[in-house]
């Protein structure tokens, strides 16, 4: 396992120029706050829903290159998808982080670049932070809540 497996160029691009990184979202329906107990990293994710689909999604927070880049790539992959489809994609990414092959590599877009992270167990949680926050935001929306705070291990 070399450093290049971890820090692919696409990842560094997302890290250096994140997409959809913002402290607020107009017309926000749900806000979730997630943190990674391992490194203390924190992430705010805001979701706006229209027609049962992800209409707007922004993230903000502090974290390592992997967590920031992964959240950025996630927003690009998820915006525009129906809520169910987005949940399915998040699950696909989670499985990929546990060493399984992605079933939807084309839909993950730049997310596939994170496949190599699975070889670095301590960094898996970094890559998952944004995706798990998105999953939580959608589930929170579906239960009718507006806010959710989670410190999690997955």
């Amino acid at each position, binding site marked *: *396992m070399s450093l290049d497996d971890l820090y692919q160029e696409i990842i560094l691009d997302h890290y250096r120029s994140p997409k959809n990184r913002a402290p607020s979202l107009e017309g926000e329906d749900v806000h979730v706050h997630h*943190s990674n*107990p*391992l490194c203390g990293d924190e992430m705010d994710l805001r979701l706006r829903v229209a027609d049962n689909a992800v209409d707007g999604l922004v993230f903000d927070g502090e974290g390592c290159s992997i967590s920031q880049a992964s959240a950025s790539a996630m927003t690009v992959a998820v915006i525009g998808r129906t809520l169910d489809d987005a949940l399915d994609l998040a699950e696909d990414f989670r499985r990929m982080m546990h060493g399984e092959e992605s079933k939807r590599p084309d839909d993950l877009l730049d997310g596939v670049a994170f496949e190599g992270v699975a070889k*670095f*167990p*301590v*960094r898996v949680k970094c890559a998952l932070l944004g995706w798990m926050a998105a999953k939580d935001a959608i589930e929170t929306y579906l239960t009718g809540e507006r806010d959710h705070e989670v*410190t*999690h*291990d997955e």
Partner: protein
Amino acid sequence: MSFDVQTRKKDFPTLSREVHGRRLVYLDSAATSQTPLPVLDAMDGYYRTCRSNVHRGVYQLAEEATDLYEGARRKLAALVGAPEHGVVFTKNATEACNLVAYSWVRRNLGPDDVVLTTHMEHHANIVPLLHAREDLGFEIRWIPVREDGQLDLEEAARLLDDGRVRFVAVGHVSNVLGTINDVAGIAAMAREANPDCIVHVDGTQAVPQMPVDVPALGVDFYALTGHKMCGPTGIGALVARPELLEQMPPFLTGGEMILDVTTEGATWAPIPGRFEAGTPMIAEAAGLGAAVDYLTEIGLDEVRAHEQQLVAAFLEGLERIEGVSVHGPRDPALRGGAISFKLDGVHPHDIGAMLDSYGVCVRVGHHCTKPLMRHLGVNATARASVYLYNDLDDLPPLLEGLEAAASFFAR
């Protein structure tokens, strides 16, 4: 013999030594087993190639150490048929029993509740309950031991009858009598009397010497220890139903088991990490993982078959000596490898000292089972216990030493 004991013997370095000019005959595996070379190598391998801390390191060494540690959890879980996150590493079986006492018993029982246990328990399985009772005031009921060394299950049924028993603590195999208890049956009885009853089994003496499938037993908690199953000292485990574990607050607290800590309070990590505070027994886990491999390779059914043959021969040999009487079941099928006995007119201490001079290691004393000693009407017993590396050659020195003790100390 069911597998090649002579070859296996070579894996256990201490067995090739002499004491008092005699070949060492180790008959104290119920106290602690010998440790085979692959286990020592696994620990050495950790110290020599990837000595580092687990869990939080982003560097190569720490990942290797973490793999060893979590790999051991996976192996142990597989050995007892349990899910990985239902295996909590502890320093020994005693800590596992205390974890149950602190995180479940003390958090769930009150003065109106009843706990059921037995007269043949090891102190590890009852003192935490006696201690908790001082603070909580619940009632403890005791399943008696019959003349033949078996639990009196008819009396157990009566003790369960009023449906008030909320916690059962019972040993799987007695370290004194050798008795194998029907823990699945007892768990079923307890649940029938009270569906909410929680069953804790002390499996310390069972896991080393027979196949155990914890979920199949239908119990909630199952304690075991590494040093009696070819593993190192300093590690044990509590195997638990994950759903139950998830509801429990932690017991030991500190690093590695929190989600967050502020000056206002702490929140707890998911299981099993929640119950593993501080730097864990990393080398010991690596060793225990190798011990599980070692036992699995031989096969625990083979170990059990081997022991049954030995026990049959030992029981026969012992009873041929005048004045010797054996405690516990006579039928090898009903028992494990520990054989307690008395020799008329000779105190166990004197038996032990004489046997030592013959190179034979047996344990003498109350074996941490004082209530059972009272029940047997003795202060102490002598106990010979066999394991996978013993063979029939180990019997004659024992018998010879006992004959000598009988004539030397006879009054």
